[in-house]
């Protein structure tokens, strides 16, 4: 039982990472970013191309892949989101769907639909915690998520830029009137959110063992479920929601392993129940 929960927490950390990116964009722009999964998948493909095809060292390849993710996010903000300022939110959400399809199409064209394998950078044997085995990718996931969580807390409370982002979520005009250039903020948000998606993609591909175009669609559902559980606008909520979702997934697959797809159904149910009973999630704030 403890083993199930610990591995659920480890898996949930990645969902939290994914949800963190979703919440960051939603919090500051009120856009549900349905491209997040494909941004993650795309970065994983770039990492694969750099590490396996071009033979770069693992760390450098992964770093450049995250750079590519940031470029995609910033580019999307510049080319699509900014010209659509003032457009209905429906249009913006649909634009993210378009971006997801575009990236997915590129992956299929450039790398094909066959599953690929991203080599693991670890040669260690992982860790045993209270008779629970944590594989290196799991440890990496935990480490990255913890770091991302701490970093975002520092960023949002200690830096002017972070404070401005928080403020802009509720009062864009107010931030403009402080003279802080909002266009940088918006691009920054999309960039950071995309990097978080890229991290989640690479880490998940390690623990899954293989990846292919659109392989994160299922994770996107879990990520959104985590965001909804956390309250859609709360960053700590996203991380907490990720862990709740991870543990739920672990428990469901532990007890009903013979019913594939039950996890998705449970996640669907979770989203519905939270929207119905507690739309502000566990840590969200009523507006």
């Amino acid at each position, binding site marked *: 039982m403890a083993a199930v929960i610990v591995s659920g927490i480890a898996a949930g950390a990645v969902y939290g990472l994914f949800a963190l990116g979703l919440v960051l964009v939603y919090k500051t722009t009120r856009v549900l970013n349905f491209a997040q999964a494909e941004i993650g998948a795309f970065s994983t493909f770039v990492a694969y191309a750099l590490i396996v095809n071009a033979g770069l060292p693992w760390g450098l390849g992964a770093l450049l892949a995250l750079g590519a993710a940031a470029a995609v996010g910033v580019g999307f903000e510049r080319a699509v989101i900014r010209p659509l300022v003032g457009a209905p939110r429906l249009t913006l959400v649909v634009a993210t769907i378009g971006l997801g399809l575009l990236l997915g199409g590129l992956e299929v064209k450039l790398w094909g639909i066959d599953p690929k394998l991203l080599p693991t950078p670890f040669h260690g044997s992982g860790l045993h915690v209270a008779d629970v085995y944590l594989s290196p990718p799991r440890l990496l996931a935990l480490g990255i998520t913890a770091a991302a969580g701490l970093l975002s807390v520092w960023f949002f409370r200690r830096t002017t830029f972070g*404070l401005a982002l928080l403020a802009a979520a509720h009062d864009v*005009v*107010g931030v403009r009137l402080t003279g802080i250039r909002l266009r940088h903020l918006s691009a920054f948000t999309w960039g950071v959110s995309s990097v978080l998606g890229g991290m989640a993609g690479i880490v998940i591909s390690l623990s899954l063992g293989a990846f292919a175009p659109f392989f994160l669609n299922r994770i996107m559902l879990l990520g959104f479920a985590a965001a909804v559980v956390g309250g859609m606008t709360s960053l700590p909520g996203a991380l907490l929601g990720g862990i709740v979702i991870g543990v739920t997934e672990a428990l469901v697959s532990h007890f009903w392993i013979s019913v594939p797809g039950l996890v998705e159904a449970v996640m669907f149910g979770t989203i519905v129940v939270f929207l119905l009973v507690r739309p502000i999630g566990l840590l969200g704030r009523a507006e």
Partner: protein
Amino acid sequence: MTALLEVRGLATGFGANRVLNGLDLDAEEGRATLLLGLNGAGKSVALKTISGLQPAWSGSIRLSGRELVGLEAEDRIRGGMGHVLQSKAVFGQLTVAENLRLGGATVRDRRQVAENMERVYTIYPRLRERASQQAGSLSGGEQAMLAVARALMAGPRLLLVDEPSAGLSPIMVEALGHTLGEIRKTGTTLLMVEQNVGFGLELADDVYVLEKGRVVYRGAAGELDLARVSALLGIGELLGPPKPTPAPRPARTTKRAAGTTKAAGATKAPGASRARGTTRTTKADGNGTAPNGRGRKEADG
């Protein structure tokens, strides 16, 4: 006198709705300029167009001679302008100190930030006491102070203030008026919009009255043609029973000359029905009481 802000022929609007129609005004260095006018006359929109929140369709806005039209609001703020909105909104989920920090975000010199912070805390001691409190939990009056304080953090040369008194209790209005006076004394130029005429006039040096997005009256606060101003604002009737005198429907003229009291009654009282071309009003008595039925003066019409 040098005009810090020069607005010439400014026009803007929303879709087919034209709000500013060739607005001309000056804000003189170190003085407080007040914009009066009926609802919908374009006062708030004028401030928003000056600060860049509303795009100008045509015309020119110069701050110390530098053209601002075409610049983003962010860059105008960086160029030495502050703007306090009518909502006096603060960043509710941040603390008072964090609000002020964002206000000074564009000031590079850290010592300068600390100095500005000290200046703001001196004007508003209450904010120092509440520095680590969430801004959203402050009272309405304290939030208004914070909104002004935040705009001051960047050390603006020109501060635009939209309806400082709106939504505040009388005591708070008085306190805010006092601090705005202090701010002007330290050399910051003020450009204000105010519905509360009495409050506005107490602070102002120069007064403009807007109608349909144009200036229809301009004068120094001390030598105001009260009859005309109150007629333009449609509040003449409030100050005494109307005395119906048939008057011909006057032509619309735009009066921008620096002339003040002698203005002939050629400008139509907006919306005041034709029968009310003549308006009674009261003379300044300075003691702040309701001026009903004292010192009447007939407007020349």
